[in-house]
């Protein structure tokens, strides 16, 4: 039988193409477009080559905010992952308290970002904030508006408060899926608490931990709203992360070219980290 060739079927893909074009490709290309050109307004553009990129990579300001971002992500991962595992391990497995704990855990995740920022902004204020006021009354010199360390402390504690629950819920879900027989067998085999964690619970949580670390890394690397609301990037530039810096550059100074170059580099960094991390985790998975 003769095959009939009919390329009209390609039209079926058209809606998706249009959708993706408008939602992703065109905005991204606009950014690419800005990143290689210079403009003085009036929609007049001049070819600028890779100038913005070389400028960016040579600027101290970029490296400073990048390292602030990396340090921030490192700290919150180091805090939230172990803490999340610890809480998940200690949550009840059955009974009436299960739902109470789950709801309590889910609450911070339901609060909008800028509300979280506002809560902590007020909470930490030395004049009317409960925490800030009490800390000072007890003789601690705490002031996140003036002291960079206090500002960092506030932003980190806020992130831990906001996002540890995510790690807890992911870990808890995989923990409750472990059949009782495993724990019973471990008892029979005389395994210590640590061995139970190392050989039963941790292997079971491995996959969700990969996801949790990826999510928390990407999210914390893109953090904007909460520190913006609490510290506005200050004092000085001490809590100016990449995203805050980017917004300052693009909307504050209206330097569209450098901002576009920065956006692209920013995106590539996240992509690179996620790819490396994912590859390493799945490779060690396959090895097992």
């Amino acid at each position, binding site marked *: 039988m003769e095959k009939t060739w009919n390329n009209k079927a390609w039209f079926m893909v058209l809606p998706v193409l249009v959708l993706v074009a408008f939602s992703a490709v065109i905005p991204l290309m606009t950014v690419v477009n800005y990143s290689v050109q210079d403009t003085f307004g009036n929609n007049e553009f001049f070819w600028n080559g890779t100038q913005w990129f070389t400028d960016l990579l040579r600027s101290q300001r970029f490296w400073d905010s990048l390292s602030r971002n990396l340090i921030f992500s490192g700290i919150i991962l180091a805090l939230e992952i172990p803490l999340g595992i610890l809480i998940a391990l200690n949550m009840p497995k059955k009974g009436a308290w299960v739902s109470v704990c789950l709801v309590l855990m889910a609450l911070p995740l339901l609060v909008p970002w800028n509300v979280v920022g506002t809560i902590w902004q007020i909470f930490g204020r030395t004049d009317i904030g409960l925490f800030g006021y009490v800390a000072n009354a007890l003789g601690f010199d705490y002031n996140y508006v003036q002291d960079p360390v206090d500002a960092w402390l506030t932003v980190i504690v806020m992130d831990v408060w906001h996002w540890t629950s995510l790690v807890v819920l992911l870990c808890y879900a995989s923990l409750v899926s472990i059949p009782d027989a495993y724990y019973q*067998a471990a*008892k029979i085999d005389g395994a210590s608490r640590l061995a139970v964690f190392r050989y039963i619970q941790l292997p079971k949580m491995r996959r969700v931990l990969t996801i949790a670390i990826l999510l928390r890394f990407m999210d914390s690397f893109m953090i904007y709203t909460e520190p913006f609301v609490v510290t506005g990037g200050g004092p000085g530039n001490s809590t100016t992360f990449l995203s805050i810096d980017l917004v300052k550059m693009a909307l504050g100074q209206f330097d569209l070219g450098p901002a576009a170059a920065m956006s692209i580099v920013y995106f590539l960094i996240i992509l690179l980290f996620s790819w490396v991390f994912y590859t390493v985790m799945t490779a060690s998975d396959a090895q097992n």
Partner: protein
Amino acid sequence: MARITLDHIRHAYSPEAEARGDYALKEVHHEWEDGGAYALLGPSGCGKTTLLNIISGLIRPSGGRIAFNGVDVTDLPTEARNIAQVFQFPVVYDTMTVYDNLAFPLRNRHVPEAQVDKRVREILAMTDLESMAKQRARGLTADQKQKISLARGLVRADVNAILFDEPLTVIDPHLKWMLRSQLKQLHRSSGFTMVYVTHDQTEALTFADKVVVMYEGEIVQIGTPTELFERPSHTFVGYFIGSPGMNVMPAAVQGRTAVIGGQEIALAGTPKLGGEGRIELGIRPEFVRLERGGLPISIDKVEDIGRQKIVRARFAGHPLSIVLDEDQDIPADAGARFEPGAIGIYANSWRVGMEA
């Protein structure tokens, strides 16, 4: 290796259930010999796993004491009881190799590494797992994983008892046969006290010296396979063991005669009845003869199952199964005859003794 004493053990899963008298395990009072192979046999929910978990210490009984070699262990945690247990579904430590899985219980007890190695190799050889010793347990099939669980149960040489909780459920039939006979062999060579939970009578009868039949939270009989077959002490045992199960019919007893539907049946002796409740007559299908001039029966159908024929008939309105040899003819006007020595009389489901 230990003698296990179950001293008035009973268990309810919650205090409320206990208050209602709703026991998952009603009173069990027995002594199991050192080095014996016991099978706990019974339908699902009869309390056999509960009893097993009480022995291993995973459950603390609501009442009664349990002792190994006369030493009370009721309050000892599982780890301290020195028990090995194999579960229904495979439990393996995924991230470890097969070898490390077997070594795990020994290393946890700080056995010197040279001894660990010797023992693990022995068991690997015994269970045919040598070829995969270096493999990680993760990628293995359910069969293989269960073999690892079994092997891990056998690896400690000094355990008080090895408990098996329906360990062959996930194993395919061919391998089941092999493993079962390997276990039996192992029991003979090692002298471990072994307790084996199952709901499969073939498994229980081939594995155990003594079969413990459980029904609704009670032990209804402990005996050798022959005893269970020939003298079931409870109608449930008669029904559960043997295929088809024992014929049980309501009867009236007058001296050395039982009467069912107006028909008189001779007994081997006089049942010692205290005048109590429901009286039944039980006889295995293997001990019913078909011959001319016997008790009047009507035959519904004949099932040919190869070496034997099963005759499904009715006697005085009650169903009656009869097992015949394959080549035995069925006369047209056949009646049934019960072998007097094989008849048991049951009062309220329990077998009563007879006076000669």
